[in-house]
């Protein structure tokens, strides 16, 4: 081992977010500018919808080009079961998709993936060129 690095992730890759939503059975609806919560609708940049959940997640664009997620996680809205408390499962899945996407650009591919104590772990190796 030569280096250990820790990073705090921001959401800046909508393709990775869409893939993460899909992994959890949901859908990122680009350009849908309202999301449902308790008994109203709120403005957003994009919307995330899960079948079986009556509430939705709003994706809000920030001035710096990143995005934040907002939603009402009240239990009757059904989101917690899909994306975890406070959306933690969705954020974790987003990180996986974003890391895979960025590592692929650097020529690495996932060779192993496993879960341990709630953590997702992925092992990457340099992809071999085929001739």
């Amino acid at each position, binding site marked *: *081992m*030569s*280096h*250990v*690095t*820790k*990073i*705090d*992730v*921001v959401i*800046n*890759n909508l393709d990775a977010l869409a893939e993460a939503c899909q992994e959890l059975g949901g859908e990122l609806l680009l350009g849908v500018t309202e999301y449902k919560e308790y008994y109203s609708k709120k403005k957003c940049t994009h919307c995330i919808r899960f079948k079986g959940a009556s509430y939705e997640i709003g994706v809000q664009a920030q001035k710096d080009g990143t995005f934040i997620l907002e939603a009402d996680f009240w239990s009757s809205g059904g989101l917690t079961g899909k994306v*975890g408390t406070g959306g*933690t*499962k969705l*954020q*974790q899945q987003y*990180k*996986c998709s*974003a*890391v895979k996407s*960025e*590592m692929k*650009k*650097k020529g*690495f591919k996932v*060779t192993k993936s496993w879960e341990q104590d*709630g*953590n*997702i*772990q*992925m*092992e*990457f*190796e*340099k992809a071999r060129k085929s001739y």
Partner: protein
Amino acid sequence: MGEKIVVTIPPKGDITFEGKGFKGKGCLDTVKDVMKSLGRVTEQRKTGDYHKVPDVKQKIAQ
């Protein structure tokens, strides 16, 4: 051992990258751009292998 990177993603908090089998700055150079595009680096720690010079066998293999 070949060069591998193990990434740990917890439900909450920071992602951890661990380079295995890299010598010198190899690991850091590889993941620098990846880290930059993902977010804010909160901690970096060099391990013993960081200071090793790549051996001849490895150079030939490359």
